[in-house]
């Protein structure tokens, strides 16, 4: 039953020689191969076993670190040398990266074992993992439902116990929302905390990588490795990385929690609302105080995000042009035909939609009305949070207005965009946020969102860990695991 253990437990088991990394890896690989969740795009059996053997050697020699030999699923958005890095897109299906992302490099350096590359919405655009070129991922709690997205493969892998930990990226909720819908823990760090180098860019000013795990303690263990300044990423911040596990045991007595009234208005499913309020009560029982706050510009987060992100992605994805790597159409008759068909055939509908929105919003005559206006509103949204954090330590609320929805139930993009209402604003502000399992509604998991001030990951992890010490929502597993 090794697959049910947390990263912290596995680390102890490896150290105590209860099992080897090779055994652990073989166990997870066999679970992946038997799984029908479609959580992986690529399974790297041979590489994983090589890494596991190397890890076992280190453990035998007494050179092991805390994460040595621990398997993980790597979101297919991170470049990995010699391994296909598709970002869930046909246009990158033939792309084998010649280099490692900084995050990949850091996990390798910690002697971790990569089981494979996790499925995701194409180029990180989507909230359901239905937009992957490699097919939708199923929610382990109910295989007719979506796991959320874009890190849907990562969340399903951890929830389905196919991997003890998975990497994710969060541009508008892509770690927190699937973590919420799959009943696991996910953290999106402060913008600039984790290097973006080698992470295929969706919206550069919003993208941030983080872990998806069973527990806050595991998230802290992995954050210790993932976080840190990188001179290859000009937007990463040169700021010391604390030991995120150090203060997990601190009492949260006196913690001031703010509940934004805008997060509890119409559109929020009543079952989700009740679950969230019950979780907040639990925090109160631990000595935290709760007050209502207001984030008046929250409603503008959706239109702002859906200008900023498409603008940036319309430019970021220009390099996927069929010229140097990736998909190229057959028999292009001239250069324009090569561009047109390679991109038309290589990108999925949602990606094309966002590229077009972005190109339109940046074009001459519209730039001021859209891009500049969005930047101004973005500033206002940040100011809302700044004000709120003068009164409270942590903001709490739902991650998603509903629990996981049925596969194929959203037919138009805009209504799916609206479901991102609670997650987008903190990407626009660059703040850190978490989703932790808070209970169930209609037999599906509900995630509680914790939003902190800049660089408050320690506090968020501490609060989450304390909650998990009092509750067992995070320990619940889908049937049959």
């Amino acid at each position, binding site marked *: 039953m090794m697959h049910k253990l947390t990263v912290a437990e596995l680390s102890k088991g490896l150290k105590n020689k209860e099992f080897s990394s090779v055994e652990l890896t073989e166990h997870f690989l066999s679970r992946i191969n038997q799984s029908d969740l479609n959580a992986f795009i690529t399974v790297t059996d041979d590489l994983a076993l090589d890494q596991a053997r190397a890890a076992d050697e280190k453990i035998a020699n007494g050179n092991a670190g805390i994460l040595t030999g621990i398997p993980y699923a790597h979101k297919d958005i*991170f*470049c990995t040398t010699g391994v296909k*890095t598709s*970002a869930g897109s046909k246009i*990158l299906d033939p*792309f084998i*990266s*010649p*280099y490692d*992302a900084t995050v990949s490099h850091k996990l390798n350096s910690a002697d971790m074992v990569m089981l494979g590359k996790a499925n995701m919405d194409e180029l990180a655009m989507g909230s359901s993992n239905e937009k992957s070129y490699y097919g939708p991922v199923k929610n382990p709690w109910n295989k007719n439902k979506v796991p959320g997205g874009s890190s849907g493969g990562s969340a399903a892998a951890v929830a389905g116990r196919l991997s003890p930990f998975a990497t994710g990226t969060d541009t508008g909720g892509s770690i927190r929302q699937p973590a919420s819908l799959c009943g696991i823990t996910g953290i999106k760090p402060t913008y600039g905390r984790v290097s*973006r*180098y*080698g*992470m*295929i*860019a969706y*919206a*550069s*000013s919003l993208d941030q990588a983080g872990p998806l795990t069973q527990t806050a303690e595991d998230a802290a263990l992995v954050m210790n490795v993932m976080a840190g300044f990188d*001179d*290859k*990423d*000009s*937007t990463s911040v040169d700021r010391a990385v604390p030991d995120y596990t150090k203060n997990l045991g601190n009492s949260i007595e006196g913690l001031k929690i703010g509940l934004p009234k805008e997060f509890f208005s119409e559109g929020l499913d009543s079952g989700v609302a009740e679950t969230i309020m019950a979780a907040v009560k639990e925090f109160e029982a631990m000595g935290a105080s709760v007050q209502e706050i207001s984030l008046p510009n929250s409603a503008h987060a959706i239109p702002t995000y859906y200008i900023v992100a498409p*603008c*940036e992605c*319309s*430019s970021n*994805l*220009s*390099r*996927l*042009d069929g*010229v*140097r*790597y990736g998909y190229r159409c057959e028999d292009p008759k001239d*250069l324009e035909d090569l*561009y047109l068909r390679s991109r038309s055939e290589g990108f999925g509908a949602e990606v094309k939609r966002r590229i077009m929105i972005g*190109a339109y919003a*940046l*074009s*001459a005559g519209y*730039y001021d009305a859209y*891009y500049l206006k969005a930047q101004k509103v973005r500033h206002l949204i940040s100011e809302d949070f700044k004000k709120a954090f003068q009164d409270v330590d942590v903001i709490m609320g739902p991650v998603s207005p509903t629990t996981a929805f049925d596969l194929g139930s959203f037919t138009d993009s805009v209504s799916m965009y609206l479901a991102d209402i609670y997650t987008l604003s903190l990407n626009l502000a660059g703040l850190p946020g978490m989703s932790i399992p808070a209970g169930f509604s209609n037999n599906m998991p509900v995630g509680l969102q914790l939003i902190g001030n800049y660089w408050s990951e320690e506090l968020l992890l501490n609060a989450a860990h304390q909650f998990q010490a009092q509750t067992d929502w995070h320990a619940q597993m889908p049937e049959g695991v």
Partner: protein
Amino acid sequence: MEWETVIGLEIHSQLKTKSKIFSGASTAFGAVPNSQACAVDLGLPGVLPVLNKEAVVMAIRFGLAVGAKVNKRSIFDRKNYFYPDLPKGYQISQFELPVVGEGEIEITTEDGKAKIVGITRAHLEEDAGKSIHDLYDDYTAIDLNRAGTPLLEIVSDPDMSSAKEAVAYAKKIHALVQYIGICDGNMQEGSFRCDANVSIRKKGAEKLGTRAELKNINSFKFLEKAINLEVERQQDILEEGGSVVQETRLYDSVKNETRSMRSKEEANDYRYFPDPDLLPVEVDDELLEQIRSNLPELPTEKKQRFVSEFGLSDYDAEVLTSQKAVADYFEAMLDAGADSKLSANWVMGELSAVLNKNQTDIENCPVSAQAFAELVMRIEDDTISGKIAKDVFKAMWQGESSADEIIDSKGLKQMTDSGAIEGIIDEIIANNAPQVEQYKDGNTKLLGFFVGQVMKATQGKANPKQVNQLLNEKLS
């Protein structure tokens, strides 16, 4: 109809940084195609640019050298367009907030007058790669070695009113960027490229005419030709009642013609926006002062100093300071002890002529400034005449040895023994009685004949001054 020409130049000056503007790859010219393009230059998925601070320092050096406002905060933007030699599908450039703002530079026009040309701005950007269309029959080859090379685009105000003025301005900028050590100025290798915006209007009209942008000009000669061609073309159109179309035109130096590349309607909408991968460039006073204090003496300052310190004419000082290498050579001669005016004459005269004839420049001159100074000093102290000096210089150019050794070994030392010269003169006067007669009758032009005879008899070694003086005495 009288027309006047309005010209503005956009100069792309390749900065002399060791590595590229946003990656660690080398910028050296001439490497095997695509061997100097790293993951960042190739625009692989996931890569990020990191600004090479040296490029910013170089841009600021330029800004300070043209008295421009250096912006404390400047922004890198993305200029979006698709082309196979542009790996990311956008060029990182500066659009709204360039590092260097308004400045100016003084040029000398054809009639010798000083004219101020305004500089609108100068901004940093990365170069694209190269498309090579004639290497394969069915394919275009792409070389990305140049992709990401730092460029400083220097945009002038539309202040030039003739092709010659445009060339004077371009040459001035060309000299300046080399002076301040930010560009090697090599036009063949594309380190210094000019685009010209050319329009014409009725003389005295206030409104500017519609302009054409001329591209692909890689020498000063072509710049002048291309502008003159374009002015003629626009005049022909307007005089026939037509109107000029705003467009980009390519100069073809082989056919000596310009042809349309794309019209304004076909121009890209570049969808500029700030690059979210890069932070704004912040320049503080401390950095600014540090750069200012490291600036070398600028051409105008040097020119003034040459006039005041060495007593040179404005013209000589201008010529000698137009290239830093020439000015350095000249000053090294003075340091070695040579006279300033004589050195100026010899550098601008014989040295420059021989360099031209051999199609080389002063940096590759086989005769060092010290060696050349020794030669000039031998003229100064009457050891040899100017005429002999030219022969000695030829020998030095061939690498024979130093001026003194050549003078010694070839016995070229000037005759200064007046007794010996007097003897030769007496002989010549005796042998040329008719000429002496004519001279005494007033045909003083014949003095040259006598001098020539003396020089011939002494193989040019007689001191010309002494010869003149003695002849005057004897013939009077």
